[in-house]
């Protein structure tokens, strides 16, 4: 087990992040907690891209920010493999180790316009980051910065421009270049393309894939657009209300996902192919408030298969395939699996009889 663990680059263990909700006024009083991330277990291997997908408010961004240590998790542990190969808990590091980890884990944000200080040349962003991480010579810093600008297909003399002089796509490339300048291991990409136009989106996605190969990067790719996530990721985790409901490898995720929410999410994505055949799963209702998440399975108020058990008992993530990489958190995953096998069989033998598993 210990050997296997050291393969992972990053491990997230039972991480919870709650934000207090306070009543406004002088006598501030905590009246509840937003359960943004509520017990997440994940691991990331070197060189892979882990996609995290979910709707707004599901906690995917909060989880990303916990990984880059912008937030301290309320509970749980996030550990990162250091050069020696042993796992280190990010919250228990000395200041020097902490800086080293900050260099190794970088983040790309959703809105490239606000990710750069509007008052400063973009060069200062490079300059400062490199200075903090120990590049003392100004010439050297400038060399690294220009090299990175070239790596993202921008002219190095753009370094002496203000952020507002760039288009969104260019700025996002600059943000990526700034991360790269620190020679990171892991880049957390929080909706890196959702603020961009589709044609520019493709430029950024291609660029990110190329850089991943060239600089042997590991990505956590957070997005709400599951088709983009599927295209980018080697492994995908679907989040709903602070919990992971399903993880599986990225290959054909759209067809193999099993959790009712993942399926609904897949079928809700409009596909740019006319007359594309899809299972019609339209979810009713809205995402419940993360301040008072539903008891039992968090998805039960919107789930079409909901039973009494779902309302009281919380499902665990259980493996559904031999390799153990495909995990689903649903009480009825076995039945679903059976159902799926049966329908596959039926399709093979062309027998069209419905059986009692239709309840699932």
């Amino acid at each position: 087990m210990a050997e296997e663990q050291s393969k992972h680059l990053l491990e997230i263990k039972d991480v919870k992040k709650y934000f207090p909700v306070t009543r406004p006024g002088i006598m501030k009083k905590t009246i509840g907690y937003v359960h943004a991330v509520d017990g997440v277990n994940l691991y990331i291997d070197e060189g892979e891209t882990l996609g995290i997908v979910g709707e707004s408010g599901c906690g995917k961004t909060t989880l990303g920010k916990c990984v880059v240590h912008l937030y301290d998790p309320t509970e749980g542990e996030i550990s990162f493999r250091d050069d020696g190969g042993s796992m280190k808990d990010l919250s228990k590091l000395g200041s020097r180790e902490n800086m080293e980890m900050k260099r190794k884990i970088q983040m790309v944000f959703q809105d490239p316009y606000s990710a750069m200080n509007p008052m400063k040349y973009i060069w200062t962003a490079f300059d400062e980051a490199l200075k903090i991480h120990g590049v003392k010579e100004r010439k050297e810093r400038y060399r690294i910065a220009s090299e990175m600008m070239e790596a993202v297909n921008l002219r190095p003399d753009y370094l002496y421009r203000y952020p507002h002089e760039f288009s969104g796509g260019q700025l996002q490339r600059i943000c990526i270049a700034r991360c790269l300048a620190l020679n990171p291991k892991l880049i957390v990409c929080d909706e890196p393309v959702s603020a961009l136009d589709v044609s520019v989106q493709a430029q950024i996605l291609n660029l990110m894939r190329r850089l991943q190969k060239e600089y042997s990067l590991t990505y956590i790719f957070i997005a709400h657009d599951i088709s983009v996530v599927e295209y980018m990721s080697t492994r995908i985790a679907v989040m709903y209300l602070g919990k992971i409901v399903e993880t599986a490898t990225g290959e054909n995720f759209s067809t193999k996902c099993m959790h009712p929410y993942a399926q609904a999410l897949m079928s809700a994505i409009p596909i740019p192919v006319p007359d594309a055949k899809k299972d019609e799963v339209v979810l009713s209702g809205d995402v419940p408030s993360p301040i008072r998440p539903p008891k039992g399975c968090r998805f039960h108020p919107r789930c079409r298969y909901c039973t009494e058990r779902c309302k009281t008992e919380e499902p665990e993530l259980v493996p559904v395939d031999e390799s153990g990489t495909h995990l689903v958190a649903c009480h009825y995953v076995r039945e679903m699996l059976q159902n799926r096998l049966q329908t596959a069989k039926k399709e093979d033998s062309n027998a069209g009889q419905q059986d009692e598993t239709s309840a699932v």
Partner: protein
Amino acid sequence: MDTQNTILQIDHLKTRFKVGKKTVYAVNDVNLSVARGHVQGIVGESGCGKSVTMRTVLQLLSPNAYIAGGDILFAPEPGGDAIDLAKMDRYGEEMRAIRGQKIAMIFQNPMASLNPVYTIGSQIMENLLLHEKVDKEEAKKRIINLLAELGIPEPEQRYNEYPHQFSGGMKQRVMIAIAMICNPGLLIADEPTTALDVTIQAQILRLMLELREHHGTSVIIVTHNMGIIAEYCDDVAVMYMGRVVESGTVRQIFQNPQHPYTRALVRCVPVPGMPKTNDLETISGSTPDASIAFDHCEFEPRCKFATEACRKGFPQAVECEPGHMVSCFARGGQS
């Protein structure tokens, strides 16, 4: 104009903005015709003039904008006369009678589109009483019926609630209710679901298709999402830099795209299940500054197939198959 089958026809429309000493050429020669009872999609990237075109139709433009030419022919009744909206006074009585009653519009951000100090019932009521003479009791009945039809649970109770008590998806339903209460012939939805989650987006778009079924409303959906177009629209117009570069039925556009821009747009979005070894198709560069007037095809600087001819003028639209129009020199367009 064939008013039997067409509800709206835009001919050579040009809209400009004066910003300081500069002129922004937002809409340059848009030609578009919306079939009665169809869902027309307008797709394009930000800054392509798709929203401005729709605002020009209703003359909901800022004071520094003006129509520099062209016609917007609107035929409320099949077989009836067409009226030219472009010639109307934007603050005039006639225009106001059309807005909300004959043509309704819903916007991108439902959170900001409702007044927080009035109940949603009174906000829907306002639009109804503005255009129709009905007594309040009946109006309320009609509104509650409509709310129920739009999938708002417990409509009698929700009628008296305030916008902050509604979630984003529910607010957009209320916006649709405000738009639909007078039963307009044409509903314009300007990025109706961009601010919403995908599962809610599916609900709202499906709802719009239902409305079309039940009321025969023609719908225009403005979006940047090719998936929405493919899934929910009958016809598409692809816009680039204030021009419709290609138009036709959804199938024509997606299965047989002719314009290089359309081709790239169709192929640059990842599709579930596509092989990951291939790079996505991209369009090099970014959209040019709209405050510089072009004297030739606007797409030429980013086009892979540009030739000398492309730098000489604007291609006129040609019909490459029935109902499928494309404006490109490489596809036989003439300047």
